[in-house]
């Protein structure tokens, strides 16, 4: 087991959550999704995104429509399905819990310090 694999495993679940979350604000095409994720330093390359989108689509969490593009082939605009929205809400809840739990375990000091930071 090496560190890269562990990191990849960690990121994987989070990436799906982020994609669903980005798409909750409306139709997007992959390049836009990637821009947003890049600006958040979540994903470095586009390659990771395409298999994820296809997989989420095959799980009926996403659907897409074709749109003509002025600068190339037609683009796929993805959006959440109803199932996807439900899935996202569940994930959001899980995420909050997870962050709290993980932080409690990993950084017991930080959790106590955080409120003071907020106060400043």
């Amino acid at each position: 087991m090496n560190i890269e694999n562990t990191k990849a495993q960690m990121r994987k679940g989070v990436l799906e959550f982020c994609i669903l979350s980005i798409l909750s604000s409306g139709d997007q095409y992959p390049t836009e999704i990637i821009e947003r994720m890049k600006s958040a330093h979540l994903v470095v390359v586009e390659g990771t995104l395409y298999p994820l989108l296809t997989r989420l689509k095959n799980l009926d969490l996403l659907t897409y429509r074709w749109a003509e593009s002025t600068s190339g082939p037609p683009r796929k605009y993805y959006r959440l399905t109803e199932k996807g929205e439900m899935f996202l809400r569940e994930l959001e809840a899980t995420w909050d819990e997870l962050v709290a739990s993980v932080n409690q375990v990993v950084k017991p000091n930080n959790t106590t310090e955080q409120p003071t930071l907020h106060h400043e």
Partner: protein
Amino acid sequence: MNKTITSNIGGIIFNIEEDAYEKLSLYLARIRQYLANAEGRDEILADVEARIAEMLQMRVSQSKQAVLMEDVDMVMDQMGSPEAFAEGSAEGTATADEPKTKEQSQGQHTRRRLYRDADDNVIGGVCSGIGYYFDIDPVWIRGAFAISFFVFGTGLLFYILLMIIIPKAETTTEKLEMKGENVNFDNIRRSVQEEFEHLKKKAENFGEEAKQWGKRGGENMRSRGSRFEDNARMAVKRTADVFGKIFSMLLIIIGVSLLIGFVLSLLGFHSFSSDTFNYARFSMFNNDESYLMAVVCGILIIGIPCIMMVYKGIRMLLKVKTKNHYVHYTAVGLWLIGVFLFVWLLIDRGREFSEENHVSETIPMLHPENDTLLIKVNIDPEMSSNGRGRFRKYKMHNEDWKDFAINGKSVKLGYPQFTIEPSENGKMELVVDKISNGPDLRTAQEYARKITYSITQTDSLIEFSSFFRPGTGDPFRGQQVVVTLYLPVGKVINLHRTTKDILWDIDNVTDTWDGDMASRRWKMTPQGLVCVDCSGIDMSKVSDDVLNYKPATKTDSVLQQAK
């Protein structure tokens, strides 16, 4: 200036530089491999292609129409390494170890290929290519080859062969393949291990299946049958693989041994060369030019198939897939040239033999005091089989030749042919017929005249030389010497045992074979020759008339005396 290729990427036409195209297609192929197990792989790839097309579209313009290497590099940078795709595709339930093994097993598909490395070469980059393939410093391989150059030059031949067989890594793809995943012992061990596990699993499954099959009594027979079929097909495929390996090795071994045998016989290792070879060299290709031609033809006609056998074998063994038609065309072309050359040579040589002419000489014989002639062959001690001169005997169509090495010089001598005919005019005479072939009648006669052969008579003893000599410096043109003794009826001839080799087609009433006629005495009768010392010869078919023939003259008493 660079060549561009027109390529359809995501439904859009691009003019893309060759190098860049190769890099991009290799990149896509690698992604495909990494996504081998992902569902919806084709869809993902289509999306990726579409995105690549979009990015490239933005980078080309009216003033810059071609897609360059740097554009492809940018695209690859933005899309990420093929591993990144695997990261996105792996199932959420995957354990931490799984992607690793997956990556490794997928890596094996991009196995390293054997190429010649033109960037790091001393001669043809063969050694450095092999070095890459086996992950060895090319210095060692070069050293090994350098040593093998001195072993009969076999290394050189092998090197040239490898240089022809192994394709040069010219494109980026090939260069990457050349340096691709290690084919080291670790990998080999692992793949063997995997293979065994696979087989074990198969065997277990098969056993299990058989058991279940027995229990259920043929229920679901069809599906089981098809799985059994799959297993069988795998087994057949593997067996075919093994046989392919053995076959290719056999090809190499046979080809190499034929080549070695051929080269050795050319170099004059006589144990490898057949009589046919020597005969051909002696009779047909007996001047330097024609011999050289014949050798060239031999190399082309025999050597090329041998080399091609080795070539094919090595290619099969190494699974070199790249098609190199030029090698085939060249080989077939050279072989045909060899055949044509050989046919031309044979016709040319044949023309040298096209005409036959002869010179006849009649030597009157003195009637000896008694009626018995003794025919003897004088064997020159220097030239006898027991003598010190090294010789080789050639069996020809109807004449024998000996090749002597006298004082280090090769001398070719022919056996004369001696026959006996009844004399029609009562005279006893010898006719020496010297015959030769040649390109035209005059030359043939010239060759015939220059043949030397001596016969001497002292009273009743006639001595023949054991061999005749063609004219000095004359080539072999089928020279023959036929000596005919015209024997009047009633004369008796004693054939000494030394005549055994020269007796040729002598008619006699008992149809005795020439070889059996020596060491006996023969009497000429109107019906033909009859033996006098008949022990060992079947006389049953000969009529009493002949046996009891007695000439009217006093030869009777002579015969009695002889007995």
